[in-house]
Protein backbone atom coordinates (compact mmCIF):
# COMPACT_ATOMS: atom_id res chain seq x y z
CA UNK A 1 0.00 0.00 0.00
CA UNK A 2 1.68 3.20 -1.05
CA UNK A 3 1.89 6.39 1.00
CA UNK A 4 -1.26 7.90 2.56
CA UNK A 5 -1.66 11.24 0.85
CA UNK A 6 -5.01 12.77 1.74
CA UNK A 7 -6.77 11.93 5.03
CA UNK A 8 -10.23 13.42 5.59
CA UNK A 9 -12.09 12.97 8.89
CA UNK A 10 -15.42 14.35 10.15
CA UNK A 11 -15.69 16.90 7.35
CA UNK A 12 -19.03 18.65 7.29
CA UNK A 13 -20.04 21.68 5.30
CA UNK A 14 -23.16 23.83 5.53
CA UNK A 15 -24.19 26.00 2.59
CA UNK A 16 -26.85 28.71 3.06
CA UNK A 17 -28.36 26.94 6.04
CA UNK A 18 -28.64 23.43 4.62
CA UNK A 19 -26.26 20.58 5.42
CA UNK A 20 -24.37 19.81 2.21
CA UNK A 21 -21.88 17.27 3.53
CA UNK A 22 -22.02 15.62 6.98
CA UNK A 23 -19.04 13.89 8.67
CA UNK A 24 -17.30 12.87 5.46
CA UNK A 25 -14.29 10.60 6.08
CA UNK A 26 -12.03 8.89 3.56
CA UNK A 27 -8.35 8.23 2.86
CA UNK A 28 -6.62 8.64 -0.48
CA UNK A 29 -3.39 6.74 -1.00
CA UNK A 30 -0.85 7.09 -3.81
CA UNK A 31 -2.07 5.31 -6.94
CA UNK A 32 -5.79 5.66 -6.11
CA UNK A 33 -8.37 7.48 -8.25
CA UNK A 34 -11.54 8.76 -6.58
CA UNK A 35 -14.51 9.96 -8.60
CA UNK A 36 -17.00 12.25 -6.86
CA UNK A 37 -20.51 11.79 -8.23
CA UNK A 38 -23.83 13.42 -7.52
CA UNK A 39 -26.54 15.56 -9.07
CA UNK A 40 -25.89 19.25 -9.67
CA UNK A 41 -25.89 21.31 -6.49
CA UNK A 42 -25.02 18.29 -4.36
CA UNK A 43 -21.77 19.92 -3.24
CA UNK A 44 -19.26 18.29 -5.61
CA UNK A 45 -17.57 21.56 -6.53
CA UNK A 46 -17.80 22.82 -2.94
CA UNK A 47 -16.01 19.68 -1.73
CA UNK A 48 -13.36 20.07 -4.42
CA UNK A 49 -12.80 23.72 -3.39
CA UNK A 50 -12.50 22.68 0.27
CA UNK A 51 -10.06 19.84 -0.44
CA UNK A 52 -7.77 21.99 -2.57
CA UNK A 53 -7.82 24.90 -0.11
CA UNK A 54 -9.84 27.51 -1.97
CA UNK A 55 -12.63 27.47 0.60
CA UNK A 56 -12.30 27.04 4.37
CA UNK A 57 -16.04 26.95 5.15
CA UNK A 58 -15.99 23.57 6.81
CA UNK A 59 -15.60 21.75 10.10
CA UNK A 60 -13.48 18.64 10.38
CA UNK A 61 -9.91 17.54 9.73
CA UNK A 62 -7.81 17.53 6.58
CA UNK A 63 -4.37 15.91 6.66
CA UNK A 64 -1.80 15.96 3.88
CA UNK A 65 0.89 13.26 4.00
CA UNK A 66 0.43 12.73 7.73
CA UNK A 67 0.38 16.35 8.84
CA UNK A 68 -2.66 18.56 9.40
CA UNK A 69 -3.07 20.83 6.41
CA UNK A 70 -2.65 24.14 8.25
CA UNK A 71 0.82 22.99 9.31
CA UNK A 72 2.21 22.02 5.90
CA UNK A 73 0.09 24.31 3.78
CA UNK A 74 3.04 25.43 1.59
CA UNK A 75 4.02 21.86 0.86
CA UNK A 76 0.45 20.89 0.00
CA UNK A 77 0.17 23.87 -2.38
CA UNK A 78 3.29 22.74 -4.21
CA UNK A 79 2.27 19.11 -4.40
CA UNK A 80 -1.25 19.39 -5.77
CA UNK A 81 -2.73 20.62 -9.01
CA UNK A 82 -6.17 22.24 -9.17
CA UNK A 83 -8.04 22.13 -12.46
CA UNK A 84 -11.33 24.03 -12.12
CA UNK A 85 -14.29 24.75 -14.35
CA UNK A 86 -12.47 27.95 -15.32
CA UNK A 87 -9.12 26.76 -16.59
CA UNK A 88 -7.13 29.88 -15.70
CA UNK A 89 -5.88 30.28 -19.26
CA UNK A 90 -5.80 33.94 -20.36
CA UNK A 91 -7.01 34.32 -23.94
CA UNK A 92 -4.79 37.30 -24.79
CA UNK A 93 -1.66 35.29 -24.03
CA UNK A 94 -0.16 32.44 -26.04
CA UNK A 95 -0.13 28.83 -24.71
CA UNK A 96 3.58 29.14 -23.98
CA UNK A 97 3.12 32.34 -21.95
CA UNK A 98 0.16 30.87 -20.08
CA UNK A 99 2.02 27.71 -19.10
CA UNK A 100 5.19 29.59 -18.18
CA UNK A 101 3.20 31.86 -15.83
CA UNK A 102 1.40 28.90 -14.23
CA UNK A 103 4.65 27.00 -13.68
CA UNK A 104 6.45 30.00 -12.23
CA UNK A 105 3.49 30.54 -9.92
CA UNK A 106 3.95 26.93 -8.74
CA UNK A 107 7.61 27.70 -7.94
CA UNK A 108 9.02 25.34 -10.56
CA UNK A 109 12.81 25.34 -10.35
CA UNK A 110 13.67 25.26 -14.05
CA UNK A 111 14.51 28.50 -15.81
CA UNK A 112 14.71 29.76 -19.39
CA UNK A 113 15.48 27.06 -21.98
CA UNK A 114 14.80 24.04 -19.74
CA UNK A 115 11.36 25.47 -18.94
CA UNK A 116 10.66 26.17 -22.60
CA UNK A 117 11.56 22.68 -23.80
CA UNK A 118 9.33 21.18 -21.11
CA UNK A 119 6.43 23.41 -22.17
CA UNK A 120 6.98 22.59 -25.85
CA UNK A 121 6.92 18.85 -25.27
CA UNK A 122 3.81 19.17 -23.12
CA UNK A 123 2.01 21.17 -25.83
CA UNK A 124 3.15 18.60 -28.39
CA UNK A 125 1.60 15.81 -26.32
CA UNK A 126 -1.78 17.50 -26.30
CA UNK A 127 -1.62 18.02 -30.06
CA UNK A 128 -0.80 21.73 -30.07
CA UNK A 129 2.63 21.27 -31.64
CA UNK A 130 2.70 24.33 -33.90
CA UNK A 131 0.41 26.50 -31.80
CA UNK A 132 2.87 27.44 -29.02
CA UNK A 133 2.85 31.16 -29.82
CA UNK A 134 -0.62 31.67 -31.25
CA UNK A 135 -2.75 33.83 -28.94
CA UNK A 136 -5.29 31.56 -27.23
CA UNK A 137 -8.24 33.63 -28.46
CA UNK A 138 -7.38 32.48 -32.00
CA UNK A 139 -7.68 28.78 -30.99
CA UNK A 140 -10.83 26.64 -31.16
CA UNK A 141 -12.72 25.71 -27.97
CA UNK A 142 -11.25 22.20 -28.04
CA UNK A 143 -7.74 23.56 -28.47
CA UNK A 144 -8.28 26.05 -25.63
CA UNK A 145 -9.22 23.15 -23.38
CA UNK A 146 -6.14 21.23 -24.44
CA UNK A 147 -3.89 24.15 -23.53
CA UNK A 148 -5.22 23.77 -20.01
CA UNK A 149 -4.81 20.00 -20.13
CA UNK A 150 -1.16 20.50 -21.09
CA UNK A 151 -0.72 21.48 -17.43
CA UNK A 152 -1.23 17.85 -16.48
CA UNK A 153 1.72 16.94 -18.66
CA UNK A 154 4.18 19.39 -17.23
CA UNK A 155 3.07 20.70 -13.83
CA UNK A 156 4.76 18.69 -11.04
CA UNK A 157 2.07 17.49 -8.64
CA UNK A 158 1.32 14.43 -6.53
CA UNK A 159 -2.42 14.98 -6.19
CA UNK A 160 -4.56 16.01 -9.16
CA UNK A 161 -7.82 17.72 -8.19
CA UNK A 162 -9.88 17.88 -11.41
CA UNK A 163 -13.32 19.53 -11.57
CA UNK A 164 -15.26 18.28 -14.62
CA UNK A 165 -12.10 17.74 -16.74
CA UNK A 166 -13.96 15.97 -19.56
CA UNK A 167 -16.20 18.88 -20.54
CA UNK A 168 -15.77 20.21 -24.13
CA UNK A 169 -13.35 17.44 -25.19
CA UNK A 170 -13.86 15.14 -28.17
CA UNK A 171 -13.88 11.32 -27.88
CA UNK A 172 -10.18 11.00 -28.71
CA UNK A 173 -9.33 13.59 -26.05
CA UNK A 174 -11.39 11.73 -23.45
CA UNK A 175 -9.52 8.48 -24.11
CA UNK A 176 -6.17 10.31 -23.91
CA UNK A 177 -7.13 11.96 -20.62
CA UNK A 178 -8.29 8.68 -19.10
CA UNK A 179 -4.97 7.12 -20.09
CA UNK A 180 -3.10 10.07 -18.60
CA UNK A 181 -5.00 9.77 -15.32
CA UNK A 182 -4.26 6.06 -15.10
CA UNK A 183 -0.61 6.67 -15.90
CA UNK A 184 -0.36 9.30 -13.15
CA UNK A 185 -1.90 6.87 -10.69
CA UNK A 186 0.36 4.02 -11.78
CA UNK A 187 3.39 6.20 -11.00
CA UNK A 188 2.31 6.82 -7.42
CA UNK A 189 0.27 10.01 -7.82
CA UNK A 190 -3.44 10.14 -6.93
CA UNK A 191 -6.39 11.75 -8.69
CA UNK A 192 -9.59 13.21 -7.29
CA UNK A 193 -12.10 14.21 -9.93
CA UNK A 194 -15.74 15.09 -10.45
CA UNK A 195 -17.43 14.15 -13.72
CA UNK A 196 -20.74 12.95 -15.08
CA UNK A 197 -18.77 10.94 -17.62
CA UNK A 198 -18.77 7.13 -17.12
CA UNK A 199 -15.12 6.30 -16.53
CA UNK A 200 -13.92 2.79 -17.39
CA UNK A 201 -10.86 2.81 -15.14
CA UNK A 202 -10.11 -0.41 -13.17
CA UNK A 203 -9.93 0.04 -9.39
CA UNK A 204 -11.83 3.32 -9.55
CA UNK A 205 -13.31 4.38 -6.18
CA UNK A 206 -16.54 6.37 -6.14
CA UNK A 207 -17.89 8.86 -3.62
CA UNK A 208 -21.62 9.48 -3.95
CA UNK A 209 -22.90 12.87 -2.74
CA UNK A 210 -26.31 14.50 -2.68
CA UNK A 211 -28.20 11.70 -0.91
CA UNK A 212 -30.04 14.29 1.16
CA UNK A 213 -29.12 15.81 4.53
CA UNK A 214 -25.43 15.70 3.74
CA UNK A 215 -25.29 11.90 3.52
CA UNK A 216 -22.67 10.29 1.34
CA UNK A 217 -21.63 6.78 0.20
CA UNK A 218 -18.13 5.52 -0.55
CA UNK A 219 -17.51 2.22 -2.30
Amino acid at each position, binding site marked *: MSELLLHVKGLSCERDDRMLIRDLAFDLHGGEILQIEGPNGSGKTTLIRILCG*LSDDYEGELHWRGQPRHRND*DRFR*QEHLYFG*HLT*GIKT*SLSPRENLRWILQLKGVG*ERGPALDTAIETALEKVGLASYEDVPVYALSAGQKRRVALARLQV*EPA*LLWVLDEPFTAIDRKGVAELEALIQQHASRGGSVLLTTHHALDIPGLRKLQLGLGGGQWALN
Partner: protein
Amino acid sequence: MGTELNPAAVNPAVVKPPSMAQGFNAMLRRDLVVAFRQRSDLVNPLFFFIMVIALFPLGIGPEPSTLQKIAPGVIWIAALLSTLLSVDSLFRQDFDDGSLELALLSPQPLFVLVLGKIIAHWLVTALPLILVSPVLGVMLYMDADTIQATLCSLLLGTPVLSMISAIGAALTVGLRKGGVLVAIIALPLYVPVLIFGTGAVEAASMSMAFGGQLAILGAFLILALAFAPFAIAAGLRISLNG
Protein backbone atom coordinates in the same frame (compact mmCIF):
# COMPACT_ATOMS: atom_id res chain seq x y z
CA MET B 1 6.27 11.75 -20.61
CA GLY B 2 9.97 11.77 -20.88
CA THR B 3 10.87 15.44 -20.32
CA GLU B 4 13.25 16.35 -17.51
CA LEU B 5 10.48 18.01 -15.59
CA ASN B 6 8.32 15.00 -15.40
CA PRO B 7 10.23 12.86 -12.90
CA ALA B 8 9.23 15.74 -10.66
CA ALA B 9 5.63 15.06 -11.62
CA VAL B 10 5.51 12.32 -9.09
CA ASN B 11 8.34 13.32 -6.81
CA PRO B 12 7.92 17.08 -6.26
CA ALA B 13 11.01 17.25 -4.04
CA VAL B 14 12.83 18.50 -7.16
CA VAL B 15 10.69 21.65 -7.05
CA LYS B 16 12.57 24.62 -5.63
CA PRO B 17 11.00 26.15 -2.51
CA PRO B 18 8.89 29.10 -3.68
CA SER B 19 10.82 32.37 -3.82
CA MET B 20 8.93 35.62 -3.43
CA ALA B 21 10.89 37.24 -6.23
CA GLN B 22 9.86 34.57 -8.73
CA GLY B 23 6.17 34.93 -7.89
CA PHE B 24 6.38 38.72 -7.91
CA ASN B 25 8.18 38.86 -11.26
CA ALA B 26 5.92 36.26 -12.84
CA MET B 27 2.78 38.21 -11.90
CA LEU B 28 4.28 41.61 -12.81
CA ARG B 29 5.55 40.46 -16.20
CA ARG B 30 2.37 38.61 -17.10
CA ASP B 31 0.11 41.52 -16.18
CA LEU B 32 2.21 43.97 -18.18
CA VAL B 33 2.05 41.69 -21.23
CA VAL B 34 -1.71 41.22 -20.85
CA ALA B 35 -2.17 44.98 -20.45
CA PHE B 36 -0.16 45.77 -23.57
CA ARG B 37 -2.12 43.18 -25.54
CA GLN B 38 -5.38 44.87 -24.53
CA ARG B 39 -4.68 48.49 -25.49
CA SER B 40 -8.13 49.83 -24.56
CA ASP B 41 -7.78 49.26 -20.83
CA LEU B 42 -4.47 51.06 -21.08
CA VAL B 43 -5.71 54.16 -22.84
CA ASN B 44 -9.18 54.74 -21.38
CA PRO B 45 -8.14 56.14 -18.01
CA LEU B 46 -5.68 58.44 -19.79
CA PHE B 47 -8.32 59.93 -22.10
CA PHE B 48 -10.73 60.23 -19.19
CA PHE B 49 -8.08 62.15 -17.21
CA ILE B 50 -7.40 64.55 -20.08
CA MET B 51 -11.07 65.13 -20.89
CA VAL B 52 -12.13 65.72 -17.29
CA ILE B 53 -9.39 68.34 -16.84
CA ALA B 54 -10.27 69.98 -20.14
CA LEU B 55 -13.89 70.34 -18.99
CA PHE B 56 -13.06 72.57 -16.01
CA PRO B 57 -12.01 75.67 -17.96
CA LEU B 58 -15.17 75.24 -20.06
CA GLY B 59 -17.28 74.98 -16.96
CA ILE B 60 -15.62 77.59 -14.77
CA GLY B 61 -14.34 80.10 -17.28
CA PRO B 62 -10.94 80.76 -18.84
CA GLU B 63 -9.58 83.50 -16.49
CA PRO B 64 -6.03 82.49 -15.56
CA SER B 65 -6.41 83.59 -11.94
CA THR B 66 -9.37 81.30 -11.17
CA LEU B 67 -7.91 78.37 -13.14
CA GLN B 68 -4.61 78.73 -11.36
CA LYS B 69 -6.40 78.68 -8.04
CA ILE B 70 -8.37 75.51 -8.73
CA ALA B 71 -5.65 73.72 -10.77
CA PRO B 72 -4.22 71.55 -7.93
CA GLY B 73 -7.65 70.27 -6.93
CA VAL B 74 -8.70 69.68 -10.53
CA ILE B 75 -5.66 67.63 -11.45
CA TRP B 76 -5.75 65.59 -8.27
CA ILE B 77 -9.47 64.87 -8.34
CA ALA B 78 -9.20 63.88 -12.02
CA ALA B 79 -6.33 61.51 -11.15
CA LEU B 80 -8.39 60.07 -8.30
CA LEU B 81 -11.42 59.44 -10.50
CA SER B 82 -9.28 57.87 -13.26
CA THR B 83 -7.82 55.45 -10.70
CA LEU B 84 -11.36 54.54 -9.67
CA LEU B 85 -12.34 54.03 -13.29
CA SER B 86 -9.46 51.68 -14.03
CA VAL B 87 -9.57 49.62 -10.82
CA ASP B 88 -12.36 47.32 -11.92
CA SER B 89 -10.11 45.62 -14.45
CA LEU B 90 -7.59 44.80 -11.74
CA PHE B 91 -9.10 41.51 -10.53
CA ARG B 92 -12.26 41.16 -12.62
CA GLN B 93 -10.63 39.56 -15.69
CA ASP B 94 -8.54 37.15 -13.64
CA PHE B 95 -11.65 36.20 -11.67
CA ASP B 96 -13.62 35.52 -14.83
CA ASP B 97 -11.00 33.28 -16.47
CA GLY B 98 -9.94 31.43 -13.31
CA SER B 99 -6.33 32.60 -13.08
CA LEU B 100 -7.14 34.39 -9.81
CA GLU B 101 -7.89 30.98 -8.29
CA LEU B 102 -4.51 29.70 -9.47
CA ALA B 103 -2.83 32.70 -7.83
CA LEU B 104 -4.66 31.96 -4.58
CA LEU B 105 -3.50 28.35 -4.67
CA SER B 106 0.11 29.20 -5.41
CA PRO B 107 2.73 28.36 -2.78
CA GLN B 108 4.06 31.88 -3.22
CA PRO B 109 2.64 34.21 -0.54
CA LEU B 110 -0.46 35.90 -1.93
CA PHE B 111 0.40 39.41 -0.75
CA VAL B 112 3.56 39.35 -2.89
CA LEU B 113 1.61 38.33 -5.98
CA VAL B 114 -0.97 41.02 -5.22
CA LEU B 115 1.81 43.60 -4.86
CA GLY B 116 3.16 42.58 -8.27
CA LYS B 117 -0.30 42.91 -9.74
CA ILE B 118 -0.90 46.38 -8.28
CA ILE B 119 2.48 47.71 -9.41
CA ALA B 120 1.79 46.42 -12.93
CA HIS B 121 -1.66 48.06 -12.79
CA TRP B 122 -0.12 51.31 -11.54
CA LEU B 123 2.53 51.32 -14.28
CA VAL B 124 -0.14 50.78 -16.90
CA THR B 125 -2.83 53.19 -15.73
CA ALA B 126 -1.33 55.82 -13.39
CA LEU B 127 2.12 56.42 -14.88
CA PRO B 128 0.75 57.72 -18.22
CA LEU B 129 -1.36 60.22 -16.25
CA ILE B 130 1.68 61.48 -14.40
CA LEU B 131 3.65 61.85 -17.61
CA VAL B 132 0.82 63.81 -19.24
CA SER B 133 0.02 66.00 -16.22
CA PRO B 134 2.64 68.73 -17.02
CA VAL B 135 0.87 69.43 -20.32
CA LEU B 136 -2.43 69.75 -18.51
CA GLY B 137 -0.72 71.88 -15.87
CA VAL B 138 0.26 74.33 -18.55
CA MET B 139 -3.34 74.32 -19.76
CA LEU B 140 -4.36 75.48 -16.27
CA TYR B 141 -1.72 78.23 -16.23
CA MET B 142 0.53 76.47 -13.73
CA ASP B 143 4.06 77.80 -13.43
CA ALA B 144 7.19 75.63 -13.51
CA ASP B 145 7.67 74.64 -9.92
CA THR B 146 3.97 74.07 -9.38
CA ILE B 147 4.12 71.55 -12.20
CA GLN B 148 7.15 70.00 -10.55
CA ALA B 149 5.21 69.73 -7.28
CA THR B 150 2.29 68.17 -9.15
CA LEU B 151 4.58 65.56 -10.69
CA CYS B 152 6.18 64.64 -7.35
CA SER B 153 2.89 64.55 -5.44
CA LEU B 154 1.20 62.41 -8.13
CA LEU B 155 4.24 60.11 -8.25
CA LEU B 156 4.01 59.52 -4.49
CA GLY B 157 0.21 59.63 -4.18
CA THR B 158 -1.17 57.55 -7.07
CA PRO B 159 0.33 54.25 -5.86
CA VAL B 160 -1.49 54.81 -2.57
CA LEU B 161 -4.70 55.47 -4.49
CA SER B 162 -4.17 52.29 -6.50
CA MET B 163 -3.63 50.25 -3.35
CA ILE B 164 -6.68 51.64 -1.58
CA SER B 165 -8.89 51.01 -4.60
CA ALA B 166 -7.38 47.53 -4.88
CA ILE B 167 -8.70 46.81 -1.38
CA GLY B 168 -12.16 47.82 -2.58
CA ALA B 169 -11.76 45.78 -5.77
CA ALA B 170 -10.62 42.69 -3.84
CA LEU B 171 -13.62 42.87 -1.51
CA THR B 172 -16.09 43.21 -4.39
CA VAL B 173 -14.49 41.04 -7.10
CA GLY B 174 -17.00 38.21 -6.73
CA LEU B 175 -20.06 40.46 -6.92
CA ARG B 176 -22.00 41.18 -10.04
CA LYS B 177 -22.64 44.81 -9.13
CA GLY B 178 -19.19 45.68 -7.87
CA GLY B 179 -18.44 48.82 -9.94
CA VAL B 180 -20.02 51.65 -7.95
CA LEU B 181 -19.42 49.85 -4.67
CA VAL B 182 -15.64 50.15 -5.10
CA ALA B 183 -16.06 53.93 -5.34
CA ILE B 184 -18.21 54.12 -2.20
CA ILE B 185 -15.68 52.01 -0.31
CA ALA B 186 -12.54 53.71 -1.57
CA LEU B 187 -13.46 57.42 -1.75
CA PRO B 188 -13.51 58.12 2.00
CA LEU B 189 -10.10 56.47 2.29
CA TYR B 190 -8.69 58.69 -0.48
CA VAL B 191 -9.23 61.86 1.58
CA PRO B 192 -5.84 62.07 3.34
CA VAL B 193 -3.95 61.50 0.08
CA LEU B 194 -6.08 64.10 -1.69
CA ILE B 195 -5.54 66.65 1.09
CA PHE B 196 -1.76 66.36 1.15
CA GLY B 197 -1.49 65.95 -2.61
CA THR B 198 -3.34 69.17 -3.36
CA GLY B 199 -1.65 70.76 -0.31
CA ALA B 200 1.76 70.21 -1.88
CA VAL B 201 0.70 71.66 -5.23
CA GLU B 202 -1.01 74.64 -3.59
CA ALA B 203 2.04 75.38 -1.47
CA ALA B 204 4.16 75.32 -4.63
CA SER B 205 1.72 77.62 -6.46
CA MET B 206 2.17 80.13 -3.62
CA SER B 207 5.92 79.52 -4.02
CA MET B 208 6.17 78.11 -0.51
CA ALA B 209 8.13 74.99 0.46
CA PHE B 210 6.15 71.79 -0.25
CA GLY B 211 8.68 69.29 1.07
CA GLY B 212 6.61 68.63 4.17
CA GLN B 213 3.51 67.58 2.25
CA LEU B 214 5.56 65.29 0.01
CA ALA B 215 7.14 63.73 3.10
CA ILE B 216 3.70 62.91 4.48
CA LEU B 217 2.63 61.48 1.11
CA GLY B 218 5.76 59.34 1.26
CA ALA B 219 4.72 58.16 4.71
CA PHE B 220 1.27 57.22 3.37
CA LEU B 221 3.00 55.33 0.56
CA ILE B 222 5.12 53.31 2.95
CA LEU B 223 2.12 52.64 5.21
CA ALA B 224 0.09 51.48 2.20
CA LEU B 225 2.93 49.32 0.84
CA ALA B 226 3.31 47.68 4.25
CA PHE B 227 -0.35 47.01 5.10
CA ALA B 228 -2.54 47.18 2.01
CA PRO B 229 -1.32 43.94 0.32
CA PHE B 230 -2.36 41.95 3.39
CA ALA B 231 -5.82 43.51 3.44
CA ILE B 232 -6.11 42.87 -0.32
CA ALA B 233 -4.99 39.25 0.04
CA ALA B 234 -7.51 38.75 2.87
CA GLY B 235 -10.21 40.39 0.73
CA LEU B 236 -9.46 38.09 -2.20
CA ARG B 237 -9.53 34.98 -0.03
CA ILE B 238 -12.89 36.05 1.39
CA SER B 239 -14.36 36.87 -2.01
CA LEU B 240 -13.31 33.54 -3.49
CA ASN B 241 -14.25 31.59 -0.41
CA GLY B 242 -17.88 31.18 -1.39
